[in-house]
């Protein structure tokens, strides 16, 4: 009897567990039908025997895919904010949101309602048109960039030949939008924030493009699905083959999406909130939501470019591939949360110097090296295993280049002995000053 009673406190958790399992099962059943656009489109196509109805089939399948992406982003915005707050709370020895719903799961909805019922204040001196457009427009790149992401086999919404460039181009539109947000507020802090954002994003787009270039050189395609398939057919993760590109891409992207340690665009201790300082209520909420969505998007990009997408050592045959994909994405997102909970923030000049003096030159060296390696692989008819040799070489060079660069620029490695303040034993009396060394 007592055993049964002892379970009572856990009933809530049990129910949640059952619900999660149920959701996974439903997702598994629906996965083929809902996400596999080509199958769906073919089904509609077959149903309408009249071939001229192709447009209807195409349109309806596209609509379902688009709604799928939108609803996934909506889910991410709701669950992601909860995950982030709970995890940071765990890092900071707090509890985090736990009052609304089970484990505080409904907290994001409560937040959304709270933000909606807050008064929307517009500065009297602001440029009203741009001030309104910016928070809405900032969603466009954040959502459009999700289109070519390969969720699984045949589960790509937009299967185009220039997928990487498409994402790169679309997300570069964020820069002017953020600038408009800051500029139209007509606030010094906002303008400083948007100036910082633009300078930083502009500098970090180049390392990103150079690291993407390395990926393209090796795989010979810009299509994200084909990049994932290339990784599985050569049975190596690109993150291992070209570690420096992964590092560059990840670090630079944290600058692009304003995450710690590069969140200087909205440094709350310096320029309060940066470019979105004047936004209140739901508009401020939209900016925060975009930031969160972009963090998850970064996870998805890193997953498909460097971490072999939906493949996981043969497990993709037993688990729905999109589950593996989302799990990898979430893992990258958790790394971002971890960084946010741990690291202080860089200064703008340090970041700019890092981009122009470290990342860009080293990326150029790295990309030359990868071009040579690719030429060797394609022209020498060498065995398949040479790629593993190159992986080892690349990792070694990655470490070597970083050490070399820190030597060249004398980035001091402060040893604990050197940084420990000296101890003045037994200072006694005011006259002690005379005995000490000259203070000039």
């Amino acid at each position, binding site marked *: 009897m007592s055993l049964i009673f002892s379970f009572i406190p856990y009933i809530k958790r049990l129910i949640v567990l059952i619900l999660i399992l149920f959701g996974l099962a439903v997702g598994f059943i629906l996965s083929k039908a809902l996400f596999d656009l080509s199958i769906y489109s073919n089904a509609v196509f077959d149903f309408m025997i009249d071939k001229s109805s192709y447009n209807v089939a*195409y349109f309806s399948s*596209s609509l379902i*895919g688009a709604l799928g992406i*939108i609803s996934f*982003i909506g889910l991410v915005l709701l669950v992601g904010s909860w995950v982030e707050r709970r995890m940071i709370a765990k890092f900071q020895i707090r509890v985090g949101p736990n009052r609304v719903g089970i484990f505080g799961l409904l907290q994001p909805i409560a937040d959304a309602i709270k*933000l909606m*019922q*807050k*008064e*929307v204040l*517009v*500065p*009297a001196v602001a440029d009203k048109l741009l001030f309104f457009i910016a*928070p809405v427009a*900032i*969603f*466009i790149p*954040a*959502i*459009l960039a999700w*289109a070519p992401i390969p969720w699984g086999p045949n589960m790509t919404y*937009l299967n185009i030949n220039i997928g990487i460039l498409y994402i790169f181009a679309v997300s570069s539109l964020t820069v002017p939008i953020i600038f408009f947000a800051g500029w139209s507020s*007509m*606030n*010094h*802090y906002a*303008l400083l924030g948007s*100036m910082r954002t633009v*300078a930083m994003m502009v500098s970090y*787009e*180049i390392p990103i*493009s150079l690291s993407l*270039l390395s990926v*393209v*050189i090796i*795989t*010979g*395609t810009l299509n994200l699905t084909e990049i994932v398939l290339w990784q599985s057919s050569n049975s190596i993760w690109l993150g291992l083959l070209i570690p420096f590109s992964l590092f560059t891409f990840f670090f630079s992207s944290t600058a692009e999406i304003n995450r710690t340690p590069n969140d200087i665009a909205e440094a709350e201790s310096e320029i*309060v909130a940066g470019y979105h*300082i*004047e936004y209140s209520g*739901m*508009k401020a*909420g*939209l900016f925060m939501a975009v930031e969160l969505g972009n963090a998850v998007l970064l996870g998805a990009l890193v997953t498909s470019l460097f971490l072999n997408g939906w493949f996981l050592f043969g497990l993709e045959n037993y688990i729905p591939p999109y589950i593996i994909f989302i799990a990898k994405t979430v893992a990258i997102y958790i790394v971002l949360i971890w960084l946010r909970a741990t690291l202080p923030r860089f200064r703008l*000049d340090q970041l700019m*110097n890092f981009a*122009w*003096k470290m990342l*860009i*030159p080293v990326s150029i060296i790295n*990309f*030359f090296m990868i*071009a*040579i390696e*690719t*030429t060797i*692989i*394609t*022209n020498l008819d060498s065995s398949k295993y040479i790629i593993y040799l190159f992986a080892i070489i690349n990792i070694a060079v990655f470490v070597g280049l970083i050490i070399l660069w820190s030597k060249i620029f004398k980035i001091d490695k402060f040893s604990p002995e050197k940084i420990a303040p000296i101890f003045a034993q037994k200072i006694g009396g005011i006259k002690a000053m005379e005995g000490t060394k000259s203070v000039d």
Partner: protein
Amino acid sequence: MIVEEYFRVFLLLILSILFPLLPLSGSYLFSKINYRPFNSNDVKSAIYECGVESEDITWRQFNAKYFLYALGFVIFDVEVIFLFPWAVIHSEQSYDIFLKVAIFVGVLAFGLLYAWKWRALEWQ
């Protein structure tokens, strides 16, 4: 086929405009049923400057230093867009194509070194 594929982008574009408008219209509806305040006044609609009135105009000339970074960015962006077509076909070609690109990138790397030497990359 390309136009058809990009129709999906257009569809997603429309949805992505509607997506943020949804909570904003919710916020607007709240104001209609008197659930959220909408009585702005001079103090509320003043810009934030740490609790005191702003004494200086904001829309003014800003540091010219940023301009160089933007220029460098444009130059490297153009470079990268030239390099992507090469990167796609690189793995199918022989050695000489590599040399052509090495010249292209080398010239720009020289530009970067030049900028470095003249301390154009120092942030002030």
